[in-house]
C-alpha cells in the first residue's frame, strides 16, 4: 500500500496542503485531479523528497519513505527534464544507475525500454534532436527504466497526441498488471475515468473526494436532479428548502437535494413555473463530480 497520510505544507502564509490523505493499493491506478494550484504537484514532490512536508508522511508497504525507498519510485515531473545534449541510451542508463542498477543491468534496461517505447533507432541521438513526442517517450522511459516498485507521474498525458495517449495508457496499465501502484495527476478527466481504479479530487489543499469512480458516483447520485423548465424565471429553485442550485442555464437547472429535501416539492415548484420538459435524477460524470467537489464553499452564499 502506498499511503499519503495527513500531509501539511505552507509557504509562509500560503497554506498549500491542509491534511491530504489517500492510499493506493498495489496494482491499481489512482487518478489525481484538482484545479491548478490545488496542491497536486506539491503532494507528489513531498513523496519524492523534493519538498519537505510540515506534517504528515508518505509510506510504502508500511515504511515511511526515505532516500533508499524513494529510489524505487519511478517519477515523471510536471516540468519535463532531460539532459538536452546527452544521448538517449546513455541518459536512460544514467538514470537507471542513479536508481541503483549496476552498469550492465542499467545498459540492458536502457536498451530494453528504448526498444519498447519505439526509440530503438534513436538510442544514439542526443535528446534535443528528438521530436517533442519522442522526448516525452524518453521521459517515460526514464521513469520506468529502473523497474520501479511505485510510479508517480505528474501530468503524464499533457501534450500528447491521441496515439501517444493510448501508448502511454497501455504502458501504465501494463505496470499496474505487474503489481505496481500508479499515481498520476491529470486534467483530462475522461482519461482518469477510463483508466483509474480510484480517483482523488484535491481542492484548496485537502482531499474533497476520494475513492473508486463508481462509488463516488453512487454517493452523489440520488442527490442530483435535472429539471428543464423553459419558462421559469432565473433563480426559481433557490428558495426551495434543502435544495442547492448547482447550475442554471435558460431553465435547464441542475439541483442538489439535501438530506431532508423533497423531490416532489421540487416538481410541484417546477410545475408552478409553467411547462416541465425534463425531470430526472442523474448520475454525475466525473467532470461534474470534480466541479462539485472543487466549487468554492462560499458558492452557497453566491448566486
Amino acid at each position, binding site marked *: 500500500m502506498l499511503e499519503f497520510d495527513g500531509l501539511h505544507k505552507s509557504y509562509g502564509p500560503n497554506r498549500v496542503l491542509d491534511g491530504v490523505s489517500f492510499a493506493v493499493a498495489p496494482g491499481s491506478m489512482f487518478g489525481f485531479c484538482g484545479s491548478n494550484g490545488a496542491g497536486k504537484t506539491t503532494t507528489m*514532490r513531498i513523496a*519524492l*523528497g*523534493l*519538498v*519537505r512536508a510540515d506534517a504528515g508522511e508518505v509510506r510504502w508497504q508500511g515504511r515511511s519513505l526515505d*532516500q*533508499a525507498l*524513494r*529510489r*524505487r*519510485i519511478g*517519477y515523471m*515531473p510536471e*516540468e*519535463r*527534464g*532531460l*539532459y*538536452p*545534449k*546527452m544521448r538517449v541510451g546513455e541518459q536512460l542508463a*544514467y*538514470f537507471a*544507475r*542513479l*536508481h*541503483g*542498477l*549496476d552498469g*550492465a*543491468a542499467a545498459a540492458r534496461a536502457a536498451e530494453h525500454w528504448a526498444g519498447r517505447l519505439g526509440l530503438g533507432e534513436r538510442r544514439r541521438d542526443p535528446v534535443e534532436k528528438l521530436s517533442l513526442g519522442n522526448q516525452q517517450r524518453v521521459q517515460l522511459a*526514464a521513469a520506468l527504466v*529502473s*523497474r520501479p516498485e511505485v510510479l508517480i507521474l505528474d501530468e503524464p498525458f499533457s501534450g500528447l497526441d491521441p496515439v501517444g495517449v493510448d501508448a502511454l495508457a497501455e504502458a501504465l496499465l501494463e505496470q499496474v498488471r505487474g503489481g505496481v501502484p500508479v499515481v498520476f495527476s491529470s486534467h483530462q478527466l475522461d482519461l482518469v475515468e477510463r483508466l483509474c481504479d480510484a480517483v482523488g479530487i484535491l481542492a484548496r489543499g485537502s482531499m474533497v473526494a476520494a475513492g473508486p469512480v463508481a462509488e463516488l458516483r453512487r454517493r452523489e447520485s440520488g442527490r442530483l436532479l435535472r429539471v428543464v423548465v423553459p419558462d421559469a424565471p432565473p433563480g426559481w429553485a433557490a428558495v426551495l428548502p434543502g435544495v442547492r442550485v448547482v447550475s442554471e442555464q435558460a431553465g435547464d437547472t441542475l439541483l442538489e437535494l439535501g438530506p431532508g429535501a423533497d423531490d416532489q416539492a421540487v416538481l410541484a415548484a417546477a410545475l408552478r413555473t409553467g411547462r416541465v420538459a425534463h425531470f430526472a435524477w442523474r448520475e454525475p460524470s466525473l467532470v461534474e463530480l470534480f466541479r462539485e467537489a472543487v466549487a468554492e464553499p462560499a458558492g452557497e452564499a453566491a448566486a
Partner: protein
Amino acid sequence: MTSSGPRTPGSAALVRMVAAREVSSRLRDKNFIVSSVVILVLLLGMMGFQVAVSGGDEPSRLAVVADDGRLGPALEAQGEAVGVDVEVVDVPDEAAARAAVEAEEVQAALVDGTGPAPELVLADRDPALEAVVGGAVSGLAVSDRLLEAGVDLQSLPEVAVSPIGGEEGDGQQVVVAIIGVVLLYGLLILFAQFVAQGVVEEKASRVVELLLATMRPWQLLAGKILGLGLLGLGQIVVIAVVGVTGALALDLVDVPGELIGTVASVVAWFVLGYAFYACVFAVAASLVSRQEDLGSVLAPASMVLVLGFFVALQAAGDPDGTLATVTSFVPGLSPLVMPVRQAAGEVTGGEVALAVVLMLVTIALAVRLGGRVYSGALLRTSGKTKLREALRAERG
C-alpha cells in the same frame, strides 16, 4: 524482478556517477577539446618564441690551434663571465682551423693564441665572441708576464657576489610564476564557468528535479565540482608537464629544480582556487534558470578573480610590497598572488601555510553556506531567486 535488482548506492557512488557523467560529457564537447588544444599550442608557441628570441644562446664553437691546455678553460671562463656560451674545439694546425671556419663547422678559429701574434679567423664578425677571445688571450698573457716577473697571483682579492634581488634565477622563477598565474586564471575562469553552465543547464532543462528525486543536492554539487575539477587538474598537469619538459628540453631555464617547485605550487594553488571558485560559481548559478542570466550573477565572483589576476601581475614586479603581501593572505586572491610571491622567494613556509589554512577555512564556509543556497534555489525554476529566499527555502 531479476537477481540484478536495484540496490541503494551510497553517497560516494552517487558522487562518482555524477562526476563521471560530467567528465564524459565534457570530453565529448568540441569546445572543450578545442580550448585544450589551443592552450597547449599557445604554450608550445610561447616556448618556441623564447627559443627564437634567445637564439644566440646556441654555444659559439671556437677552434683553437695547438692549445697547451690553458687557453680552452680560459676562453670558456671568459665566455661565461660575459654571458656567451663558448665551446672550444681543438684543431692540429692553422690550415685545419681555416678549413673548419670555411666549412662553417666553427664560428671562428684562434691561431697562435699564446704566441706573440694571436689571430682570430672569423666567418662573420661577432663582437661578443671577439671580446671573449680578446679578454681571454690578454688575460692569459698578463698572468704569464706577471708570473715571469715573480708576482704572487694567489693573494689577489676576490670579489664576493651578494645579489640583493634574492637568489640567482628568481627572475626566471617569477616569469614562470606569471605564466603559471595566467594559466591558473584562465583555467579557473574556464572550469568555474563549466560548473556554472552545468548547474544552469540542469535547472533550465528541469532535469534537476529528476536528479534530486534520487540524490541530495550536496551530492549533485560535489559530483559536479569533483568531476570538472579532476578534468581541470588533468589539464593543468598536462600543461605543466608539457611546459616543464619543453622548457628543460629547449634549455630555457637555468635551475630546473626551482622551475618544478614553482610549477608544483601553481598546480597546488589551482586545486584550492578551483574548489573555492567552483563552489561560489555553482551557487551563484543555482539562483538563475537561464544561461542568459548567468553573466549578471557571476559578475561579483568574476570580479574578485580578475582583481586577483591583476594584483598577481603587479606582485610579480613588487613581490614584497604591501599590496602583494596583504592580498597573498586574502582568501580568493591568495591562489593567484601567493604563487608569484613564492616564486620570488619572498615568503616563508609559515606564511604559505597561513594562506593555505585561511583558504581552506573559506572553502569550508563556502561549501556549507553554498550548499544551503544551492538546495534552496534548485527547484525554483521561475526567473531569478534571491539569495535570502534560497537560504530560507532550503529543504535540508
